[in-house]
């Protein structure tokens, strides 16, 4: 007889001891990204991207900074999970695999922090009518 509860037995299964959290978060972020990516692509293809002032005015307008921060966070999370699986599948050499996973993790975190800082900096230093 085992003293472990049924829940204790199934939590954290799998070789990475993460249970279904990777699979689940890939789906959660993908659902969040359906409206966020469509919003972003629609905005950017209609934005005069060569014009510095108009781009900054757009970033700072209304609730755009909020959507941009959510977009950057969700994209980076989803991308990090996806790139992780690609690295795990295609790089058999363990040292190279772990190095690539570390590089991907760090790069994604840098993208989130730097991208969010850029959005906030524009939002707080640009004064637009929007």
């Amino acid at each position: 007889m085992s003293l472990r509860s049924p829940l204790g037995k199934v939590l954290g299964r799998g070789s990475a001891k993460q249970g279904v959290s990777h699979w689940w978060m890939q789906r959660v972020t993908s659902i969040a990204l359906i409206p966020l990516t469509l919003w972003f692509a629609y905005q950017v293809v209609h934005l005069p991207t060569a014009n510095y002032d108009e781009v900054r005015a757009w970033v700072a307008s209304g609730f755009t900074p909020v959507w941009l921060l959510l977009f950057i966070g969700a994209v980076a999370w989803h991308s990090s999970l996806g790139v992780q699986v690609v690295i795990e599948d295609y790089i058999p050499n363990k040292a190279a695999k772990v190095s690539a996973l570390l590089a991907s993790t760090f790069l994604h975190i840098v993208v989130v922090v730097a991208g969010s800082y850029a959005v906030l900096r524009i939002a707080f230093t640009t004064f637009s009518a929007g």
Partner: protein
Amino acid sequence: MRQRPLSPHIGVYKFAYTMATSIVHRATGVVLSVGLLALAGWLIAAASGPEAYAIAVAILGGAFGQLLLAGWLVAFSYHLFNGLRHLNWDLGRGLEKHEARHSAAIVVVATLLLAGAFIYAAFFAGVPR
């Protein structure tokens, strides 16, 4: 590395175009991850000042940069529709072979339509670049 016996892999199967739609989902995902770097670079340039932004415009506004942007729009459209196909599978629906072939065709047509609309809006609708 230790040589271990391998189970039969892709080479033993007769090619079906649903295989292509599967690997293209991965490929477009990686392409879009690279696009995320460009997105961050673009925002950082816009936050850094007009000189930095002029460099970003010179790179992304050039012929190669515009080709990349068009490619990201196509990759996004495909990854979006094929991702919806995956979410539908996750609900346990559409997993039969004939259903998977049917949904693959829908994904390709929807991708061409959405990517075409985005590329038209971005490059041919008269938005100044």
